[in-house]
């Protein structure tokens, strides 16, 4: 790896003039150390997932991910994301609309509260729902009397997932919509456009890439959440096991290859997320230069 970098660095090492950058040797050394660090900490684990998953050949790999419990875990993971992501998207858009387009007292407090789930340990994110809905929880006796199961069942998993992924869409949209201001919407309003029309025709086209990125991130986390779901799921095979929990169970049963095979599906999800992110950044960067060019 280092050799290849060395060879190509000769041509274009830096865009900056000599007085505002480091000498060639220092540059190469810094790049080498940075890449080595990223290689050891980030790239190597990713490679190891793939290598371990395929260590016993394709047939075992395919068998591992098409096995009954794995498929049921996949179904539960998809179902959970299908409920949590749209709800948080709806919330994110509403919150960003209120916060970015209007002035009101307590706005900073609201923004901080939206960030809260980021600061809470995943385990605690699960714990709070156990405290509310668990057998010994505040609402536990009432739920038991009415035969409603939340903890160790789908609703608990969904709730914990919603909590953990709560800020993603809002966090992405608030700064974006704040930067865009209200002029375009106000112009549309003075031209007689009504509420939904303003949103669909003016706001949404402006925020679509940021929104997409927020949704993608939210989805990645929703499908990959481990700690919080682990607390509320009860780990019932074939019923309340999501993909990450299934990875854990297989790993703890020393079925390493199967565990890594299922993990490779989640790693693929991560890679897709990164690719979408790159596309979104490229698209929105292009848009920015387009509008700058138009203004200039």
């Amino acid at each position, binding site marked *: 790896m280092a050799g290849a970098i060395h060879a190509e660095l000769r041509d274009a090492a830096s865009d900056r003039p000599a007085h505002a950058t480091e000498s060639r040797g220092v540059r190469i050394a810094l790049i080498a*150390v940075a890449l080595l660090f990223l290689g050891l900490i980030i790239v*190597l684990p990713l490679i190891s997932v793939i290598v*371990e998953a395929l260590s016993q050949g394709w047939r075992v790999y395919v068998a591992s991910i098409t096995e009954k419990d794995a498929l049921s875990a996949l179904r539960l993971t998809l179902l959970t994301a299908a409920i949590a992501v749209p709800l948080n998207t709806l919330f994110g858009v509403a919150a960003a609309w209120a916060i970015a387009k209007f002035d009101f007292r307590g706005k900073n407090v609201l923004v901080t509260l939206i960030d809260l789930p980021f600061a809470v340990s995943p385990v605690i994110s699960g714990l709070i729902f156990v405290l509310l809905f668990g057998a010994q929880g505040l609402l536990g006796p009432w739920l038991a009397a009415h035969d409603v199961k939340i903890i160790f069942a789908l609703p608990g998993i969904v709730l914990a997932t919603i909590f953990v992924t709560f800020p993603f869409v809002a966090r992405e949209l608030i700064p974006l919509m704040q930067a865009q201001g*209200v002029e375009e919407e106000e112009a549309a309003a*003075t031209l007689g456009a009504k509420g939904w029309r303003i949103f669909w025709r003016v706001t949404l086209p402006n925020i679509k890439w940021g929104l997409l990125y927020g949704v993608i991130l939210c989805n990645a986390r929703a499908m*990959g959440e481990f700690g919080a779901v682990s607390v509320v799921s009860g780990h019932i095979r074939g019923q309340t096991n999501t993909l990450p929990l299934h990875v854990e169970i297989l790993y703890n049963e020393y079925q390493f290859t199967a565990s890594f095979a299922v993990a490779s599906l989640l790693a693929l999800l991560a890679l897709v997320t990164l690719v979408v992110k790159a596309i979104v950044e490229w698209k929105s960067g292009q848009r920015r230069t387009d509008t700058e060019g138009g203004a200039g």
Partner: protein
Amino acid sequence: MKGSGKASVLPGFGLSLGFTVLYLSLIVIIPLASVLIKTAGMSFSEFWAAVTNARVLAAYKISFLTALLAAAVNVVFGLLVAWVLVRYRFPGKRLVDSIVDLPFALPTAVAGIALTSIYAPTGWIGSLFEPLGIKIAYTPIGITIALIFIGLPFVVRTVQPVLQDLDQDVEEAAVMLGAYRWRTFRKVILPELAAPLMTGFALAFARGIGEYGSVVFISGNMPMKTEIAPLLIMTKLEQFDYEGATAIALVMLIISFALLLVINYMQWRYSRRLKTG
């Protein structure tokens, strides 16, 4: 939280704010309040005993120190990675830039088993250190490595945009006053990056204290030695010791919220300085 200060022609203020507050209350505020309600049911001495038990204190210590160390390592290497990505040209730079986000996107359990397999005594890297008598997985070093993995993007992504927007003018001003590279870096560039580095540190640290998925596999989970606080909560829950779990959770929540306030304050101060500066 009432009344729109700005008379606005735009619709939907009541609806969007109402939904936001309702959803926030149902999903975040009320569930979090349950921690307070639960601990309120304990006497102070019960609470104190639960959070100062030797095993609990050891878990706090492990969580705290490894998160601190990992965040510190990330400040150094995060700055290095951001620097290299912003300032230098090298083949595959865009790919490297995307890779930095992997810890955000990769499910923690996957990161956990992958890191464990690499750093275990039989793993690709663990086996290199085994003959030297150094164990990485199942020790605090392993926990720290997992937290470095988790925390890296926080530092890189807070420093990168600031470094990007740094005026070349300012560096040239230092040059014209006779300063060479190292002095320019220390005296002119680094102070500009202090705020984002601190923010990145705090974010990585906050995340590290609460991290669970990537750590449980590599930590070995030995009480008093490699047991982290979130795992202890999990263990207490499995033993149906809800009070004990909740008490530990409350302490952790308080630490996290304090960190969140510090981060918000630093960002507010930084943006204020940029505005007037």
